[in-house]
């Protein structure tokens, strides 16, 4: 198997595993199962897959593994400014509830009992894990070269959240407008803060790097079409970078 294919396989596994966490909450709120059950069946295995993929990546594709780990770390830290905005909005009564606490009671299947210390820990851990997952997807798809892309990415996540089954099940109408104009403002600002922080931190930690996904697709395509000498040299450079 050639270098680009191996890299793409690793990137594909990383992306699939990273996509699991953020999708479970909307799936649960859409009625496709309990979040507690999904966490056991899908979330924990996806965490394990990501850890194993990163570990194996350090052996075979160090640049990719490094990018994934540093990207995830940037995502966790970038969730902090999101929280500052979100909690401010919550205390100003622009938000109908405290989402990490809701996620926590659902994860531990104790909605009717309300939050506990354990469920709060679980909810916040899941919330920050989602921050890491979105960041991993960001660095894999977009790279870290253009920090402003993080802002757009954060904005897109915010919009996606507001049209997701999560907001529908809260009964606050599309974009939360039936609850308060403060809802879409808070959510948008919070995710813009996340995206901006992610763009800056990912570039700071991993250096300005192009998209590994795009890079390897290009390299694969060029190699397969037997491209020109220049393209061949670029492919060699990309495969060397992947091996480092």
């Amino acid at each position, binding site marked *: 198997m050639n270098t680009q294919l191996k890299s793409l396989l690793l990137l594909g596994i990383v992306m699939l595993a990273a996509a699991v966490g953020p999708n479970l909450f909307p799936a649960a*709120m*859409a*009625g*496709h199962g309990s979040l507690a059950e999904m966490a056991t069946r899908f979330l924990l295995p996806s965490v394990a897959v990501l850890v194993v993929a990163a570990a194996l990546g350090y052996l075979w594709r160090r640049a990719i593994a490094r990018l994934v780990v540093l990207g995830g770390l940037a995502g966790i830290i970038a969730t902090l400014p999101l929280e500052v905005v979100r909690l401010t909005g919550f205390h100003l009564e622009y938000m*109908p*509830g405290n989402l990490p606490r*809701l996620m926590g009671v659902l994860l531990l299947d104790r*909605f*009717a009992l309300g939050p506990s210390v354990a469920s709060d820990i679980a909810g916040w851990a899941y919330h920050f894990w989602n921050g890491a997952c979105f960041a991993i997807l960001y660095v894999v798809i977009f790279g870290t070269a253009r920090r402003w892309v993080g802002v757009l990415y954060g904005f897109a996540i915010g919009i996606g959240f507001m049209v997701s*089954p999560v907001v*529908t*099940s*809260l*009964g*606050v*109408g599309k974009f939360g407008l039936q*609850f308060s104009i403060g809802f879409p403002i808070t959510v948008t600002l919070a995710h813009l803060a996340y995206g901006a922080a992610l763009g800056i931190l990912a570039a700071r930690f991993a250096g300005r790097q192009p998209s590994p996904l795009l890079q390897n697709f290009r390299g694969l395509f060029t190699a397969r079409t037997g491209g020109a000498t220049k393209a061949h040299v670029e492919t060699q450079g990309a495969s060397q970078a992947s091996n480092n």
Partner: protein
Amino acid sequence: MRVKATFLAIMILAAFVAFATPASAQQDRVVVESKHSFEQTIKNLKSAVGQGGMMVMAEVDQGNMLKMTGLDLKATTFLVGNPTVGKMLFQRNHGVGLYVPLRVFVTEVNGKTSISYEKASTQLSKFNDSEINKTAAMLDEKLEGLARMAGM
């Protein structure tokens, strides 16, 4: 004669109350026949709850619980509600806690699955609060929609 007429009036009134109460209680309790199996109806209900701006807050699997007594049946109660609506109701009167979250019951009898619930407007009218009544009417509509979607 006058005593007889009074007695007759009392008897008629008593008969009316005796027969009217079960009838009105029947109206307050809504039963919807489902076209689907028990398991599919539950799946549909959970999906409908989310789409309807509510959440399943708890599930009481009476069928599974009663297996411990040797009784074999399919019956589950769902506590459904919306925290934002619940907050408003509790702010008006804490007593609503006896009725909120709302109960939706799914059971299978002789191979037929049904969804039943008691109207929120009936349960919450006891508080004589216009805001609670308005919300209860909205909840009635939501429950009707849920039950219809789950059973269709």
